[in-house]
Structure formats: C-alpha cells, structure tokens
C-alpha cells in the first residue's frame, strides 16, 4: 500500500521538473529571440556586408569584392590614423583614470568627514550627458576661455594661446580631459565600493601588527582589491575604445578631425558621409575583434583572480 502511495508522488515530481524546465525555457525565450535579432544577426550581417561593395544611396545590388575592403583598410593611411588616434586616446585616458580613481578612493576613505560629499562631487559629471559635457568644454577650450586663462595664471604668463582645439597634441589632451573629468568619479565610486567590502578586521589586524597607513594600503588594500583594479582597467579600456560623442561634438565645433578621428567616428563618417557601407562594415568587424580580445582578457583575468577573505 505504501508503495502505491509513493508512486504517483514521484511522477508528480517529475512532471513538476518538466513543467519547470518548460517554464524556464519560456522565461528565457524573449531574451534569446531579442539577442538573435538585435545582436547576433547584425554582427553576422556586418561580417557578410564587409565582403561587398555597397553604396548607401544606390538601389543596385551590392557587388561581391572578397577581402578587398579589408585590404583597402590595411593600406589606407586614414585607417591607420584612426587606429593611432584610438590607441592614444584609450591609453592616454585609462592610465590616469585608473591611477587617479584608485588614489581618490583610497584618500576619500581616510576622511572621517565629508566622505559622502566628496563622493557626490566627484561623481556629479557622470550624470551630465556627453553632449552637455562637450558643449561646456568647447567654451572652456575657446582661445578666450577658462583653460587658457588658467594656464596663463598657473605659468604666470600673459595672453599665450595654448591652442587647446587647434594644436594636434593639445586637442588630443582636450578630449582626454573631457573624458577623464566625466568618468573619473564613476570609477572612484567603484573603488570605494571595492575597498569598503574588505572586512574591517583585516585592517585592524594589520594595525595591531604595527603597519602604518601607507603599509596598510600597499600590503593589504591593494592586493585585496586587485580583481576590482584589473576589472576597472579593462572596463575603462573598452569604454575608451568605444568613445564617440566627445570627438563627434568637438569636430562639429570646428576642431580638426585628424588627431581625434577615432574608429567609431571613422565608421560613422565612412557610412554616413562617404556612403560606403561595405567598408564601414569591415571597420566594424575590426573594431569588434579588437574589443573582443580585450573582453577575452577581462574574462580570463576575472576568472583567475578569485579572492577569498
């Protein structure tokens, strides 16, 4: 009798499991469809289009050109210039960004008062939109603007035009400053969160062992937040590789395009101004490969670095 009782219950459980499996599938179905349409298909499409010569306005069928678009890009001066502009911007931004946000976070946490205020102040530019940020900085970088006034004050000179928007290197620096200004607070907060999650007892133990603040930071905090540090650097690196708005708006504001013609801007112009969709797709594929290698790095790093307290 007892067995007869058990039997239907097992079946019940199985149907429940099956029911759950179906529901789990139903719940994830929208995401699968969504990503298939809006991520995988476009990626495959870009890959496919990159083998064709296609003019945006033409109603004629695109012509197959094999690897010609890629070969063209590898030989094109302006493409290498874009790679260079992107590399300079990405490295020039992410190194100071990581160093400064790390030190800001460490220093803010040593403060007993105004911690919240400082965090908010540093974070505030991140809530402005990029368009607004670029509009403000374009005025600041005007020859008559605050940036020249500041440098003239700092170096005690008079009326020197530091050519923020017209000198090649100053222009690069200008875009880097805008980006740094906008996102440094964001990364500071991430570090603050990372550092705050280190249990107090570890710091206390170190202090009892006679470590000073510097030693504590160097030997305790830094090693323990290494996953955060690595993640932040790769993350900010990828974000920098994808920069668009600042450069786009600076060029619209009259700055020469060449020093800041980053890949994304170049893709946009190749597609929208030059109407060469095939070539723009080839550039997209290359950008994808670059970013994928950085993402791969990110995933590998975060996998190997699992810290337990």
């Amino acid at each position: 009798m007892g067995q007869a009782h058990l039997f239907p219950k097992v079946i019940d459980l199985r149907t429940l499991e099956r029911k759950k499996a179906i529901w789990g599938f139903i719940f994830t179905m929208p995401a699968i469809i969504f990503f298939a349409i809006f991520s995988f298909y476009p990626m495959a499409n870009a890959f496919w289009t990159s083998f064709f010569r296609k003019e945006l306005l033409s109603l004629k069928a695109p012509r197959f050109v094999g690897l010609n678009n890629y070969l063209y890009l590898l030989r094109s001066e302006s493409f290498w210039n874009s790679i260079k502009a992107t590399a300079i911007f990405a490295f020039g931004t992410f190194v100071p960004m990581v160093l400064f946000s790390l030190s800001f976070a460490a220093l803010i946490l040593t403060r007993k008062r105004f911690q919240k205020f400082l965090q908010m102040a540093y974070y505030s530019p991140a809530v402005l939109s990029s368009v607004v940020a670029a509009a403000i900085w374009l005025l600041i970088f005007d020859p008559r603007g605050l940036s020249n006034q500041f440098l003239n004050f700092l170096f005690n000179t008079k009326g020197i035009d530091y050519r923020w928007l017209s000198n090649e290197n100053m222009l690069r620096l200008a875009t880097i400053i805008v980006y740094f200004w906008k996102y440094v607070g964001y990364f500071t907060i991430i570090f603050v969160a990372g550092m705050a999650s280190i249990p107090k007892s570890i710091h206390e133990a170190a202090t009892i062992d006679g470590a000073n603040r510097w030693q504590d930071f160097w030997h305790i905090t830094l090693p323990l937040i290494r996953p955060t540090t690595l993640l932040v650097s790769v993350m900010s690196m990828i974000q920098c590789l994808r920069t668009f708005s600042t450069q786009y708006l600076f060029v619209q504001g009259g700055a020469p395009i060449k020093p800041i013609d980053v890949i994304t801007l170049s893709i946009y112009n190749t597609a929208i101004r030059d109407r060469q969709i095939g070539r723009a797709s080839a550039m997209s594929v290359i950008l994808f490969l670059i970013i994928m290698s950085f993402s791969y790095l990110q995933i590998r790093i975060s996998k190997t670095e699992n810290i337990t307290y």
Partner: protein
Amino acid sequence: MRQSVFLDIFIWFFLIVFAVFILVPILFMFTASLMSSKNIMRIPYPWISGEFRWQNYWQAIKGNDGKFFYLKSIWNSFLVASLTTIGTVLLCSLTGYGLAKYRFKGRTFVLLMILSTMMIPFEAIMIPLYLIVTNMGMQDTYAGLIVPLLMNAFGIFMMRQYLLTFPDELIDAARIDGTSEFGIYWKIVLPNSLPAIATLAILTFRSQWDNLLWPLLIIQSPEKKTIPLYIIQFATEKYTNEGAMMAAAAIASIPMFILFFTLTKYFLSGAELFAARKD
C-alpha cells in the same frame, strides 16, 4: 604626529583641488547660462557678473523658431528613457529569474550566449542594426529608439546573480498555494528584488538619457527628438549665442541632478555593478 597632520592637510588639499577641477565646469555652465556672450568671452571670466539674462533660458526653451521643440524633446527623453527602463527591468529580471531558478536543457549555453553579446560593441553593429530597424518600419519612431535597447546582457547577468540568492522557500510556498509560474515571478520575485531593480533602472535610465549615436541615426522629425539631439541642433543654429547654449545645457542637466540628489544611494551603489552598456 606633526608629520601626520601635515599629511592630513596635504590629502585635504589634493582632494579639494580635484573637487574644484570637477565642479568648476558645472559651475561655469550655470553662471554662463545667465550671461551675454560678451561677458562669457571676457578675459578674465567674470564669475560673479551680476548679470541675470533670464532670456537665455527663454530662448533655449522657445527655440530659434519659436516652436518650443525643447519642451517636446525633454518630454521625449523622459518618455523614451522611462519606457526603456521599465521594459529593461521587466525583461532582464524575467530572464535572470529563468536562468537562476529553473533547470532546463541548454541553460548554461543560453547564459553563455547572452554573456557573449557583452563583447559585441554597439558601434560595430550600428549600421546593420540600423538597416534592420528601418526594415521593421521603426525608422523615426519611439519604438526604434526603445526596442533595440530593451535588453542588455549585463542587466540579465546582474539580475541572475542577485536572484541566485533569492530564498527558494518563498517560491516553493507560492507554488504549493497554486500560484502560476508567471504569477510567482510577478507577485513574489519582482516585489522582493527592489535593490537590484533600482540599480538596474538607474543605469538604464541614465544611459538612455545620454544616448546620442543611436537617436542620431534613427530620428529625423523634430517633434521626436531627444534632448541630446535637440542640443546639437540648437548649437549649430545661427542665432544661438553662448549664453543660450549654456542655458539649454543647464536645462538638460537639472532633471538628472534632481534625480541624483534624491536617489544618491542608488546612484552610488549602482556604480559597483558597472559593466558594458550600450551608450
């Protein structure tokens, strides 16, 4: 001890100098928004000019053609950002819930597939995406702005991680009570994961509010423009002077600042859950 005081002062100095560097451009925007272009371009910059040109704000709101499109853009930005946020929160939490609490064939594969899309940069697929969206007839519509951004891998991943620790007892109890599977998600899971939802919502809202590249491609009609599009148009118009430009910028920033000050907690805690977003 003296050394420590000295160090302390130095740290304050360092932090304050950078706080000033970060706040000065914002202060510049607000002060310049009330000045004539002549004052803005004066050397040295008159921080306290005593000038209050409110007509800068009036010009920014009214627009150079007097059609008040800016008000419409502000509304559009709110509408698009809010709808995207609501959609993202619902869809990401649903998928995240499915992945966290249900066992089914290919679950790991689905998770990996979703995570792999984090590596596809938006810029790399923007043109094919644009052609798809136009083929679906969503060119120059709100739907065209919202639909392709409704889901992001990071949101799903974040919700999944959060829901992994969601108590199974609550779900099982509801199931025994005869609640449907969708009902469990709707009545039990969703209301009990507010912290993660708030964070995801803020991240989504902010990135959509800031979005420039996608609307630039999708939207043509002036009455459907979002704030960033309006501002870049306003900036290139012939009668726009620097003061009015800064007024338009200030107007665009005020709502986000209000949001930031009222929801500081979520903004600051959201930062730790950063990742690749489509922005």
